[in-house]
């Protein structure tokens, strides 16, 4: 089954063929079939992740759905950014979603308070734009380390499990969880320090 990433890679590869030096992508030629296929693939792969993230940031399911919708539409408009294969697609999507949430929060703050704003909402994470590249870089790096390494980091860091809990979850002895987490962090460092990932001049997210 083709992933969204594969679809994105094919598009410029096929479209390039001719004399034009500019890589043509979905964004330039939004044929309805290609657009639909891209949106469907992105939704099927990343929809859950995006919606959960946007829901946490906005504290509101309806607002989160709007954010996801806008994120996917931007992905289609900027398919060329995505197709260049810099950073992970998911990192790009999550970053754009986060930017949309931040922009909307700012727009709201610029207006007089509304009744809806009184409702308790978790604060939007601090907006430091230098993390725009990092989110994509780190996710890409996590894609590049082995599945075992990624798993142990997800368990210990992102799911907040203890060594004993992760050992049970992964079906390995606690000692293995410890050593694996050490080597996973080393591997991550090697990937991030490697030449392919840290190329800061590109990979910027279009807002």
């Amino acid at each position, binding site marked *: 089954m083709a992933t969204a990433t*594969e*679809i994105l890679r*094919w598009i410029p590869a096929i*479209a390039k063929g*001719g004399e*034009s030096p500019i890589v043509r992508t*979905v964004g330039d*030629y*939004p*044929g*309805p*079939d*290609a*657009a*639909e*296929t*891209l*949106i*469907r*693939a992105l*939704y*099927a*792969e990343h*929809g*859950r*992740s*995006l*919606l*959960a*993230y946007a829901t*946490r940031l906005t504290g509101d399911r309806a607002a989160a759905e709007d954010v*996801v*919708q806008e994120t*996917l*539409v931007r992905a*289609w408009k900027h398919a060329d950014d995505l197709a260049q294969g810099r950073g992970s697609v998911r*990192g790009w999507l*999550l970053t754009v979603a986060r930017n949309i949430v931040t922009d909307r929060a700012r727009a709201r703050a610029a207006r007089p308070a509304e009744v809806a704003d009184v409702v308790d909402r978790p604060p939007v994470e601090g907006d430091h734009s230098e993390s725009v590249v990092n*989110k994509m870089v*780190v*996710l890409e*790096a*996590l894609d590049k380390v082995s599945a075992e390494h990624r798993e142990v*980091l997800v368990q*210990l*860091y*992102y799911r907040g499990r*203890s*060594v*004993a809990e*992760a050992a049970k979850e992964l079906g390995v002895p606690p000692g293995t969880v*410890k*050593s*694996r*987490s*050490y080597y996973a*962090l*080393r591997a*991550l*460092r090697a990937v991030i320090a490697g030449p392919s990932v840290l190329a800061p001049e590109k990979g910027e997210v279009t807002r």
Partner: protein
Amino acid sequence: MSEHDRTQLGAYALGALEPAEVQEVDEHLATCAECRDELAELAQMKDFLGEVPPEAFLEGPPEGGDLLLQRTLREVRELSPEPASAPAPAKRRSRRWLLVAAAVVVVAGALGGGVVLGRQTAPQADEPAAGYKEVTATDTTTGTTMAATVEPRVGWSWVRVSIKGLKAGAECEMLVTDSTGKSWVAGSWVVSAKAAREGSAFGGGVLVPLDQVRSVEIKTIQGQHVVTATV
């Protein structure tokens, strides 16, 4: 932890060790600059991990239906320029674009074929679906002639009528009676001047399977009988 056991440092940096283990590592770190340096590097990686939200590791589509997907597709379709409005010098480009579209359609097939299938199973406007029934009737009192086609759908029916002899401005409704004698409204419309001259065509669906459709009747909204065809 009196000697180097670096493999503890990963879990330590990630905050996953038990308090007793943490204390052991702390004691060792207090005396070992090498391990402190190592820990600093690992802690930097932990900070990097912090850039990625935990939701990044959820897979698949959102739970609870695809209304959001449909809404997004609608927006993209509305934003897509019509093929006819493409700029003129783009001839070669559009051929290339066709290639892309073709490749993507292949992918769509691999993804489950939702796009293509969805279109092919939509009701066709021209030919009646296989297994349809066709009846005609003339009402001698009103002088109205009707040809009715009842097409099978899955659990319901699509009824198309073509009627001559209706008066312009008449407000009509189509009723379908099932085998239990129950009457279903399959839609209503107003007869235009042109339809009064040349014949009126109308279609509507009812939640009655084809084999239970007994009759199709046209009435005015005011309740006046116009014509009935028995199926």
